[in-house]
């Protein structure tokens, strides 16, 4: 049993500030209006700390990480 961490954007809460893409460009792109587009929802181990910082930086708490058991 391994645990993977996945990224999730709360589309209703997101206001397109774009801080997450600054901190986690490996997984997050911005669309032309500045809203995040997830390139990949699975967070690789080497990016866990970066994902945590991106989640903490969101001023409207719209970025989440979930632990999925697979």
């Amino acid at each position: 049993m391994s645990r993977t961490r996945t990224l999730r954007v709360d589309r209703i809460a997101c206001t397109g500030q774009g801080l997450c893409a600054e901190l986690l460009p490996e997984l997050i792109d911005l669309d032309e209006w500045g809203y995040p587009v997830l390139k990949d929802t699975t967070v690789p181990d080497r990016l866990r700390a970066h994902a945590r910082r991106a989640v903490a930086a969101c001023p409207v708490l719209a970025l989440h990480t979930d632990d999925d058991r697979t």
Partner: protein
Amino acid sequence: MTTLALTGSPLWYASRAGGTLALLLLTATVVLGIASGGRARPRRIGRFELGVLHRNLSLLTLVFLVVHVVTAVLDPFVHLGWAVSVVPFGASYRPLWLGLGTAGLDLLLAVAVTSALRRRLGVRRWKAVHWLAYAAWPLALFHGVGTGTDTRLPLQLWLYAGCLGTVVAAVWWRLVKAGPGRVAGRLTAAVATTAVPVVLTAFLASGPLQPGWSQRAASTAVLLGGGR
């Protein structure tokens, strides 16, 4: 003035320095918070760095506030007691002017705790408490001006003026950037940023900069402190 200031204990110096630094750091924190909220786009640093600086400087503010409060309580010149650090307006020494600082600290502690728990609280409740920081800043300023040992030094006055100017400029910048809506909030901000400098100048001219303020600071407290 200089000879009088040199007679204090090391704790008193530490308290004054800690308080002044805390005010400077709080000012920087408030300005950075306004910049983040107004979606500032700095050219040389990333926008996330504004947020990280805002958080780190706020924690540093609390560190210097702890130094400020602990040294003030331990200083033998005024016997304050530990309750003063959290219960406002109960001090035996200048209850009103000291109490403003205590009230500001309480608000900042509430802001810090809710920020640490913001994921559990949700964004609405967190932000509702976070706005209290805007009340803590003028409380800290008036606490410093009203009871600060160094208030009459020109350098300290310039420092207060600098803090006031930066925050007022930041608020106005944000108001200019703000779109329509939230009329009540924008009006309140505009009125407050106009009123605080006027009230502060009038207060300085009539209070701390007049001779005999140290006695009057205590008696204002008697008047407003419920006949202590």
